């Protein structure tokens, strides 16, 4: 219908106009002043000692984009000082940039939320914000982290943000990886969305890219993906050796639940895992850690427990680092020969059909009127 077509065109125009207001030069200049010399960490690479860092980053609304960049550098610098070659930021890292949206947009101001965002949904103003500002947010994140990675001279996994999907029709929650020359290496969409994300209209993309880098093959999962073995298995099958996870949760830290996340995934798949957890306050939530770096317990260089590094306090910002031994991982992978244990005939019988049947049951259940629950 002509009316809806016009609406679509207008929305697209608004998104582009807003995205065009990203102060790329200001960002570049500000970061250049704060990161004047690149790290030498990647001048010599020893695959037996790949140095990685996870930033337990404090989410908070900045006053200006310069404030945001200062906070970024403040937490990046300790990682660089410790010789990190790869730095991972948490989930939602770019979301605080919403506080620096040009005030003339007339879009909802999420910084004024005093209750969890989940309790306000479905709020049309918030949904409109995500729709209109995602392209702007994507450009902001790209401008900041592209320059940060190049100026720092290291690989940076830029946390995650709500950005336009490749088809430009939807918004996805995506994590990006940048190379030490600032090159954009991959974008991975969060696969297992929270209910509030779905209510916000966030979609999930099924692509699972793995980037070939000087530090090995890197894959990314986002947030709660780490509780679903399917995500990590797919990355292992695609050849990932390092799996990066920007993560954020509001649940109090539980050491038992910790064993059901990335630690478990690297025991199931012989890969290294680096999780950066968010702390701080955003969208009416208080986020808690802990960040961790994990390896398969059978790798010679990894302690028996499979934990290479862990943040001390789940509520405080932190930087944790570890050294990864890739030849040892490779030797362990060959010794384990996990692939020899696969049963493709079994998987063909049940995948993906069982999932599809479940999806159909869930859809049908949602259509049915709900009876009151008895305990």
């Amino acid at each position: 219908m002509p009316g809806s077509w016009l609406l679509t065109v207008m929305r697209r125009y608004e998104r582009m106009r807003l995205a065009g207001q990203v102060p790329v030069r200001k960002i570049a200049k500000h970061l250049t002043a704060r990161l004047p010399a690149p790290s030498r960490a990647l001048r010599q690479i020893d695959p037996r000692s790949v140095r990685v860092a996870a930033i337990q980053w404090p989410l908070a609304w900045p006053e200006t984009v310069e404030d945001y960049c200062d906070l970024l550098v403040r937490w990046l610098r300790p990682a660089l000082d410790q010789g990190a070659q790869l730095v991972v930021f948490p989930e939602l890292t770019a979301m605080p940039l919403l506080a620096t949206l040009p005030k003339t947009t007339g879009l909802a101001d999420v910084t004024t939320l005093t209750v969890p965002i989940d309790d306000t949904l479905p709020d049309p103003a918030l949904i409109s914000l995500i729709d209109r500002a995602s392209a702007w947010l994507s450009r902001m994140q790209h401008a900041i982290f592209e320059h940060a990675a190049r100026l720092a001279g290291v690989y940076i996994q830029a946390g995650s943000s709500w950005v336009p999907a490749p088809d430009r029709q939807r918004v996805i929650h995506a994590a990006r990886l940048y190379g030490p020359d600032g090159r954009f290496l991959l974008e991975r969409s969060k696969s297992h969305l929270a209910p509030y994300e779905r209510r916000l209209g966030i979609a999930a993309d099924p692509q699972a890219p793995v980037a070939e880098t000087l530090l090995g093959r890197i894959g990314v999962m986002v947030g709660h993906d780490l509780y679903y073995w399917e995500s990590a298995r797919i990355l292992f099958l695609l050849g990932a050796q390092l799996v990066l996870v920007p993560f954020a949760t509001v649940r109090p830290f539980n050491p038992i639940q910790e064993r059901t996340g990335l630690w478990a995934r690297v025991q199931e798949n012989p890969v290294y895992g680096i999780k950066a957890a968010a702390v701080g306050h955003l969208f009416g939530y208080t986020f808690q850690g802990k960040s961790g770096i994990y390896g398969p317990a059978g790798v010679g260089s990894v302690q028996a427990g499979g934990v290479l590094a862990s943040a001390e306090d789940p509520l405080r910002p932190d930087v944790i680092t570890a050294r990864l031994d890739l030849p040892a991982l490779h030797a362990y992978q060959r010794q384990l020969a996990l692939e020899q244990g696969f049963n493709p005939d079994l998987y063909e019988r049940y995948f993906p059909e069982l999932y599809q049947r479940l999806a159909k049951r869930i859809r049908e259940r949602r259509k049915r009127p709900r009876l009151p629950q008895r305990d």
Partner: protein
Amino acid sequence: MKAARLRSGMRRVAALQFPFFAAPNLEAVREYLLKQMLKAQPHKPLLIVLPALTGLMPLRLLSGNMPQFNAAFREDCLRYGLAAEESLLDWARVLARTFDAYLVPGSSIVPGEDGLVHKTYLFDPDGQLIGEQAQTHVTPQQRAVGIVPADQFQTWDLEGIRVGIALDADACWPEVGRILALMGASVVINPSAGRLQASQVQQYTGAWQLAQSNQLFVIEAALTGVLGDDRFNGRSTVYAPFALTPRGDGIVAQGPSRRKAAAVIGDLDFRALFRLRREQPIAHRFHHALYRQHFPQRYRDRLAQVQAGGDNDGAAFSAAASQGF
């Protein structure tokens, strides 16, 4: 013996743990199994699970050889496996009836169409064999003696409870737990003969992880002690999602120590389980498009790549070490 009366929505199960018994004759094996099951009797469980490899006790007597995973063992299984299985099934029929409980009497290794098959059985309280389940993911040691994986699962309804079986190492494969959960299982039975491993990894992987990832109860009955050159870790455990357990550690009940024979009794609270599933539905986050895109083809791709020697990490590491940026 009727199952114990518990609070509505609860069911009692028993996971036995005991060492392999090198008995002097078949009757002694039968008495040994009976003696182990008597430990569970006062608790009147609905379901009793025995550890894996119980069928090797009659096999040893028939073949005259102590079972060890080698070429001779393979020959013994081919020659005597069915007869050993027959003995185990005969005892199981009687034991299930005697104790008026569903029974998983451990497992046997028998000849199959394409090789040896490691399988277990499910009996109802009338002593009827209602199902069998073979192992679907075999270990390198098992593969070396000719054990081949099965490619199918079943689930059964035990008085309103849907159960599936993950035999031995199957519990270590997340694919297995997911398939059984998607088939509707609320309980997964795991007769196991796990080897000794690093304790922290062992505690939180395998059957424990299966329970957490799929919001299931898992009943692990573990072989203990020594069998030939192998030592078994034998700590039978009943697992549940950690939010449902008294200490929040995912353990409903656990055997005393790795060497002792015991009956581990666990009360499964299905009301609590279903409430947890309603309040925290993991399936609602599934990404069906992702699974459709990658499963099952990526498994075949990876296997083909490895078999073709395409995993060139060794060379890649040398190259990376000589470069910088």
